[in-house]
Each structure stands twice: as structure tokens, then as C-alpha cells.
């Protein structure tokens, strides 16, 4: 889902040695001074952008936008028109307003991303927690299923499903949702394992709590934190995957999506004559994916710090 490879235990022999001799007091500093617990300005900029895009997409029908499907052909000039006062992002070859198409496109692209990762969170989270909590055969079977899904290119499975079924918003979302089960599930499993042996879980077990109760009351809240960070990263992946499908001609059939818009402008002639057709949606898509990635990444390291402090 990202380059989420665990960075090995930080061998700070030298650093620790230096630190210890450099100032014994450094070692014993109070927590709030050594570990800076802030999300940083970048995180808030990212969140702001995501909020703006989500709000614009949600409110698109009520915003004073031009009709995304109308052709605004100006007399005496052939489209596409470059960005100007009336068409902020310019228009495409059919003289459709790119600004409003980008915002309407966000509706579909973000819905796909959101439904997909929600699917992954619910089913992947559940399977991962079962595997991590019960271990044994449950774990072996579920982990194997995860490996199967992870071991061949996700996009192949996606095109397999989307090519054979009708290409509705629902099919695409669910397809990408199925694909996000395995990656999310693996993280859920790993996190569950790391918590399943902690004192508070053992304590609950010795007090006779049922498995269901332990999983919901004790494990779920702890698993949710890293999963929340993962959700943002996963949503970015799903939004990108939709674009990939669009490039293969397999995205949602009706309406505009970012992927389809980029494809519209990606031909060599269009790139040469009217690069804005491709670059307007590319920039918006890029900023959105970057924000999701960045916010997710910050959140992840932010909570990792807390985990080690536990």
C-alpha cells in the first residue's frame, strides 16, 4: 500500500554512548522534551486540501458551477480553449468546462476511494484481527488468502472483474474494496498480534471476558489507531487505481472521473496543442494523492511514537 517496510531496530550504540557521556541528563529528560509530538504544518495543509476537495465534491450540485456536460463553444474559435476568466482550467476538445468537470470528477474518484478503503477496513480489519487474535489454523488460512491476493498484480484482478461485469460505480468500488482487504488485513493482523499478549488483554482474559468482548473492547480501539493512518494511504492507492483502470478503458462508464479526464488529454496531439486538458486533472489528482499520503504518513509516525511510549 505504501513503502511500509519496517525500519530495523535503530542501532544507536554510538549515539547512545555519545549521548550518555555528552550529558547524563539527556537520557533522563522528561518525555515531552525528547519526543516532539506535533503533526507539523504540512499535515494541516494536507488536511485542509483534502477537506476542500471533499466538500467541493459533496456540494458540487449546489455550487455555482458550470454544467460539466455542456459544450461552451465560442463563436469563431474552435475548442479546446486555454484557461481564461470564464473557464479557469480551460476546456476540453468538446468545449466542456474543465474546472467543473474536475470537481464533478472528484465525486466519482473520491467515492471509489472511500468505498474501497471502507470495504478494506471492515473486512480486512475483521479477518486480520481474527487471524492475529486466534492464531493457529485461523491465522494460517487467512494469511494464506492474503498472500494469494498480494502475490499477483492487483490491477490484473481488477481488470478481470471490471471487464467481465458492468462498469458501474458500484462494481468498481467493490472491486477495489476487495483488493484492499489483503493489505489492510495484514496490518490489522500484525497490530493485533502485538497487542494480544499485552497485560491488559491477558488481564481481561483471566477475568473471564469472552473472545468477542476482548476483541471489541480491548483490541479494536488499539488496532483502529494505526488503521486510521492506513486508511488515508489506502484511499490514495484506490484513487490512483481508479485512474489506472481508466487508462485501460475500464473505469466507471458514466460521468467524468479524474482518470478518464487525464486520458482525454493524454494523446500526443492534445499534449502538444492543449496540455491543460491533461494537466488540470493531473495537478488536482496529484495534490490530493500527495495530501492523503502525507497526512497518512505523518499520522502513522505520530502514533508509532505513542505506541513505543506505552
Amino acid at each position, binding site marked *: 500500500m505504501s513503502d511500509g517496510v519496517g525500519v530495523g531496530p535503530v542501532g544507536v550504540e554510538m549515539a547512545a*554512548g555519545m549521548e550518555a*557521556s*555528552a*550529558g*547524563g*541528563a*539527556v*537520557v*533522563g529528560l522528561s518525555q515531552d522534551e525528547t519526543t516532539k509530538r506535533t503533526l507539523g504544518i504540512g499535515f494541516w495543509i494536507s488536511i485542509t486540501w483534502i477537506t476542500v476537495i471533499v466538500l467541493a465534491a459533496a456540494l458540487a450540485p449546489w455550487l455555482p458551477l458550470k454544467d460539466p456536460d455542456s459544450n461552451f463553444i465560442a463563436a469563431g474559435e474552435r475548442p479546446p480553449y486555454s484557461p481564461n476568466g470564464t473557464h479557469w482550467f480551460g476546456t476540453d476538445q468538446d468545449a466542456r468546462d474543465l474546472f467543473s468537470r474536475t470537481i464533478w470528477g472528484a465525486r466519482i474518484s473520491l467515492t471509489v476511494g472511500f468505498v474501497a478503503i471502507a470495504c478494506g477496513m471492515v473486512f480486512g480489519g475483521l479477518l486480520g484481527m481474527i487471524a492475529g487474535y486466534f492464531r493457529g489454523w485461523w491465522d494460517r488460512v487467512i494469511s494464506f488468502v492474503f498472500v494469494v491476493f498480494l502475490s499477483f498484480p492487483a490491477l490484473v484482478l481488477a481488470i478481470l472483474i471490471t471487464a467481465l461485469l458492468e462498469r458501474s460505480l458500484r462494481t468498481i468500488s467493490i472491486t477495489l474494496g476487495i483488493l484492499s482487504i489483503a493489505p489492510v488485513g495484514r496490518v490489522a493482523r500484525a497490530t493485533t498480534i502485538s497487542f494480544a499478549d499485552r497485560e491488559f488483554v491477558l488481564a481481561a482474559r483471566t477475568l473471564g471476558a469472552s473472545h468477542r468482548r476482548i476483541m471489541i473492547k480491548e483490541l479494536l480501539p488499539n488496532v483502529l489507531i494505526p488503521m486510521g493512518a492506513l486508511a488515508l494511504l489506502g484511499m490514495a492507492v484506490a484513487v490512483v487505481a481508479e485512474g489506472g483502470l481508466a487508462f485501460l478503458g475500464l473505469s466507471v462508464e458514466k460521468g467524468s472521473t479524474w482518470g478518464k479526464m487525464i486520458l482525454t488529454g493524454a494523446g500526443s496531439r492534445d499534449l502538444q496543442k492543449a496540455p491543460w486538458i491533461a494537466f488540470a486533472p493531473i495537478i488536482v489528482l496529484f495534490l490530493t494523492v500527495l495530501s492523503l499520503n502525507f497526512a497518512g504518513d505523518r499520522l502513522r509516525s505520530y502514533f508509532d511514537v505513542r505506541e513505543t511510549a506505552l
Partner: protein
Amino acid sequence: MRVEAGAVLLELDDLKTHFKTERGLVRAVDGVTLKLRRGESLGVVGESGSGKTVLSRSIMGLLPSTAVRHGSVRFAGQEIQGMSSKQMRHLWGAEMSMVFQNPLNSLNPLMKIGKQIVEPLKLHLGMDKDNARATAVQLLRDVRIPEAERRLNQYPHELSGGMRQRVMIAIALACGPTLLFADEPTTALDVTVQAQILDLINEQRRDRDMSVILVTHDLGVVAGHTDQIAVMYGGKLVEYAPTKILFADMKMPYTKSLMRSIPKMADPSHSRLATIPGRPPDLVNPPKGCNFAPRCAYAQDRCHVEEPPLTEAKDAGHVFACWYPVGSPEFERKDAELQEQGIMPADSAAVS
């Protein structure tokens, strides 16, 4: 540039080493002045955080980029304090070398032992492959490693801890340095191996007319293996004396406390080791007056206000920094008081 045995090899003058950190300037070494003659060995003793490790690395110039050095370091008559790593590289391994605390971490785990010993030989002495290998075998024999030829093709993880430390020493000795730093060389080793390693270093020192700086937290380690002892606290030298004189007549209450933390053979097993209460001083905002005063059972009002200067004791070459040293009337009065209250163990810290 070669220094005769017995002549001054290393001279520190008011050496300071500070680290820039987010909290402020950490004064890890704060004005150390001393001299070391060729062939002599010096023990640098102190708790962790006293600046002893930084001192040794500062002399060598092996510091992270956040470090700032002031003062003077003269090695074989040459000022090396302001030298760049590029210039120092010709001294490292050739004229001065270092043995570290943990022999597993300080050997490259993915490189054969032979290659690690040969590396400095090729680098500084320009030896060819065969010559370097032959020298490496001889070095391994010098440090008493059995089956030396076979070891060349082994990896560090295939050897025991003591063997690895011997290999480290062989690497350090490879180019015949005149100054060897040994930074807690035995701390990570079994007790039985510790003495062997220390004896080995000492024996090589005598054979090669080499100077050794032995850094340790353990006064017991330096007792039988050094000519001079420098006691460090809070980045400063607080007591300095020839080994015998120091043990016979230690002046600093801090040195005495260090002594008390050595386990003694005569103690019943499982008896608790005395540790020094409190924490080492904050080196960003050091306490006013004597650094040790906040933890010193004998501290009086003056200690908290005025910093004691290094003062000469009655024996030659013995200096200490304390207002009320062991043996002074104020100290004795306080000691008697404390013993009445039963706070301090009534031993006089005599070690034979």
C-alpha cells in the same frame, strides 16, 4: 616526528568539547589539561556521563559534526586540534588507534576478519596482499589467538567475545601506533576474560613502547594496569594522580564513592553494591559551585557557591578539585556525624 620512549607524546591544554543540541550547548568535556609520556598508561575513570568517552574521541578527532572543540591537543609535538578528518586520517590507525567496548558491534559483521586486519596495513604501510596477510597472521599470534591462519577466513560471529576483542586489539595494533585508546575494553566481556584482555593490552604496551589511555567506569580495572589515573566528573578533571598515590590517598569524596562501587571479594555474596545516589549533572546547565556538590554527602555551603580549583596535594603529580577533601578537618567532622547517623558504611575504602 617519532617520539622517544619517556618523552611527552600527548599534551592537552584546556581541551573543551561541546555538543550543539536542541536543548542548548552540552559541555561534555569542559577544560581538561594533562600530559602523557610515551610508554605510559593513563586510566580515565568516571561514571557514564562524566565525559570520559567523549574525551578520548575528542583527542582522536572522531566526533559527530555537532561537536565543537576548543583548546589544544598536541600529539608528538604537532597541534592536531584544528585538523580536518582528511588530515587526521593519516594518524588514525597509523599513529593512534582505538579499541571499543563491544567487540561484536565494533567489528564489521559482513567482512572476514583477515580483511579487517589487512585493511589498515594496506592503507598506511602500503603492504601488498601476501605481506599484509603474513603480518595479519603474526598479529593474531601476538594477541594469542590460536589457529591464526584459519581465523583470517572467519567472520566475527564465529568467534567468542574474548576472541573478538583480541581481534579488535590486533587491528588497533596493526600499524604500530604510539597511542592506543581502549574505551571500556572489558565491560562487555566475561569476568574471567577481562583480566586476560587487560594483561594483553599492558604486555603489548611494554613490548611496543606504546602509550595507552584506558577509559573505564571501574576503578578496579585501572588499579593494576595504569601508571596514572584521571578521575572525571561532569566533563572536568576532578582528581589526577599516579595510580599508587591515588589509591593510597584519594582526596575527592567522588573518587571515594567510585571506589565503594567496586565489588569486593571479601563481601558476602549478594551484598548490595553501593551506588552513588543522584544523577550525573546536567551538562547544559551545570550546577553552580562544585559539580558534584548536589550529590556529595560532605558538601558544605561553600561547595554550592564556589567552584573548587585544581589544587596540588602533598605528593608530586597529585591534584584534586575539592574544598573539603578527604582528611581535611571539615570532612572528618562530617564523616563522624554521618557514621553516627549510620548513613555511610564505615569502610575506609582500602583496596589491596
